[in-house]
């Protein structure tokens, strides 16, 4: 999670400043490892526009929380509606503020000062309606890619018969394990189907190594659904997760069968 803090110096020992637009530096700190990005505020316009420019800058950097001395309630309201948490009356060093936030140390008192809107005072119906709208928007934004993937699954199942995939198995342990992992990555659906196909493969003479690999990747590697994973969690995440799951499945399936057969 990224936390934005207006600061007087470009480091974590900097003091938290009162206003976003008047601080010499803006720090966008990753709360997990305390790595941070420094944004130079000297390039911002002066006057009332500076605050809005600073805000836009930190939101562009992915900040979802702002720890600051003061912010106008007129700005806090719309930010909160859009899921950005603002904590005011924050003082001390930037590092202390982030650590305190992580501990949940900013209770109602800080968020309840004269500058911010206390969450409890917002009518529940209003909050529910806002949360509903936000959730619906998040869901609707996924409709196109979900539709495409569901259509793709149908296409894949209709035009790529399972018999064709069975032809990938040759009788060689390593090749069959790899082929099993590949088949499992391509096929989708209830894992029970993988048990049925697995049993059929064994009847056709495929070794258990390939079957175990297919069953493992069936439930962990999703090539057809990857466009959705990419659009939501990013290309890097989707690639690393699927490749890692595929590569881990191959030795694991060999080990599963080895243990099953009583080891050596």
């Amino acid at each position, binding site marked *: 999670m990224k936390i934005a803090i207006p600061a007087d110096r470009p480091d974590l020992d900097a003091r938290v400043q009162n206003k976003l637009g008047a601080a010499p530096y803006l720090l966008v700190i990753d709360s997990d490892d305390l790595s941070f990005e420094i944004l130079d505020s000297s390039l911002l316009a002066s006057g009332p526009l500076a605050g809005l420019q600073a805000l836009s800058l930190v939101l562009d950097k992915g900040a979802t929380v702002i720890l600051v001395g003061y912010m106008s309630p007129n700005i806090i309201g719309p930010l909160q509606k859009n899921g950005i948490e603002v904590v005011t009356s924050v003082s001390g060093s930037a590092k202390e503020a982030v650590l305190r936030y992580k501990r949940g140390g900013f209770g109602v008192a800080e968020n309840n000062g004269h500058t911010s809107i206390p969450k409890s005072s917002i009518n529940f119906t209003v909050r529910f309606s806002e949360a509903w709208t936000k959730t619906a928007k998040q869901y609707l934004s996924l409709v196109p890619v979900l539709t495409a993937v569901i259509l793709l699954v149908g296409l894949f199942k209709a035009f790529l018969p399972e018999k064709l995939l069975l032809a990938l198995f040759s009788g060689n342990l390593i090749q069959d394990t790899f082929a099993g992992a590949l088949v499992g990555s391509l096929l989708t659906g209830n894992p029970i189907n993988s*048990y049925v196909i697995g049993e059929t493969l064994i009847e056709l003479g495929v070794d258990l190594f390939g079957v175990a690999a297919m069953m493992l990747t069936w439930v962990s590697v999703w090539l057809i659904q990857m466009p959705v994973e990419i659009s939501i969690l990013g290309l890097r995440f989707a690639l690393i997760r699927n490749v890692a799951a595929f590569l881990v499945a191959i030795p694991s399936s060999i080990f599963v069968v080895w243990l099953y057969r009583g080891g050596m």
Partner: protein
Amino acid sequence: MSQGKANDAPRLKRSRFRAWIFPAGVAGVYLILYPIAPCRTLNGLGVAGQVLLQASLPLIISFGMMLLLNLFITPSHVSKLLGGGAGVKGIFLSAVAGILSMGPIFAWYPFLATLRKKGASDFHLANFLSHRAVKPVLLPMMIVYFGWRFSLIFTIFCIFCALVTAAIVGMLGGQR
């Protein structure tokens, strides 16, 4: 502020338009395939319909959970439970959530997107996804097909694979 909104409008329109390119492409493939193999194409559409039907309940559950997250949970809560420093509790929570999540995986992606926005780390998101491989409900069925010994070893290795995969994503993900 108003100037910013005015500038954002065409960009928003473009991104909405771009989002439909992929589904339009897949629909185009259906249109091309229909005259060549009408039965299979219709069969594909039928399968897609079934998949959507199977996904409807998990989609509703996922929507409900997202609504609760947006209503009650702040980024600091999620960061504490599923952030980088959440420890064993975070690993356990994300693993159990993954094991209990039912239905097609794409039904759960929107929920994961919300969790990430609120501060969940890549490790915990990957741990959730990877632990979906562990299916205690289907264990009796697996035992019927492959026997209890294979099923037990397989299930233990599913957990092992899930943790290793999540650890790799956590190390190489680089976003959090």
